[in-house]
């Protein structure tokens, strides 16, 4: 069973698990045996061109020492051979098209989206 994981919500990364919780879940599902691919959409498109660890926050005297590292998490997916897709038009409308994509992230045209959806048995939109 092939499953497309559609990640849309972004940047809750500094408080919930100190990562993107759905990317984290995807890593876990892969390790548990699921055959998955990931589509970064909406503002999660930013993840495809992220180059640094997220900035940690300071709240009062509390200082964050382990902020989210989305680049590392996407590198993990690439190492697991989990395909990750991002839509060209969604990068363009956010002014991100000129930025280099992270290794393992595949750029696709929006017009090919229906073909991508067709390839999978289930689509889990988060």
């Amino acid at each position, binding site marked *: 069973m092939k499953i497309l994981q559609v990640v*849309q919500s972004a940047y809750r990364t500094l408080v919930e698990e100190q990562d993107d919780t759905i990317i984290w879940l995807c890593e876990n599902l892969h390790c548990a045996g699921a055959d998955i691919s990931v589509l970064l959409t*909406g503002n999660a498109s930013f993840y495809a061109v992220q180059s640094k660890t997220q900035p940690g926050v300071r709240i009062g005297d509390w200082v964050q020492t382990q902020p989210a590292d989305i680049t590392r998490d996407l590198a993990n997916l690439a190492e697991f051979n989990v395909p990750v897709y991002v839509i060209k038009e969604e990068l363009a409308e956010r002014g991100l098209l000129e930025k280099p994509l992270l290794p393992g992230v595949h750029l696709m045209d929006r017009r090919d989206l*229906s073909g991508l959806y*067709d390839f999978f048995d289930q*689509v889990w*939109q988060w």
Partner: protein
Amino acid sequence: MSSYFFVQSLDPFVDRATDTQFSLMSELAAAGNEVSLFLVQNGVVSAASQAVSPEFDKLLDAGIKIYADKFSLWQREIELTQLKKHIESAELHVVIQAMVNGEKVIWN
């Protein structure tokens, strides 16, 4: 070809991604897939005949089966007679049936 069943809880007036989702439904239908749409929560707002929602309106003649959740309509006092053409009011059982049938059921 596949069967898609979208559950649309967000509306295009607040959430811009809703129009993108409607476009995807049109494209999937145009590619020959069987596409159904179940409007629920604020998703039913587009179904009212006076609602201005051009991307949604394109779905009405796209061969897509469109349902509107009776409970959500009732909450918003949208009468069945106020619905746009080709929209059928329905219970959530329709969503469960689509899942049991093995359709690709996608929540937005």
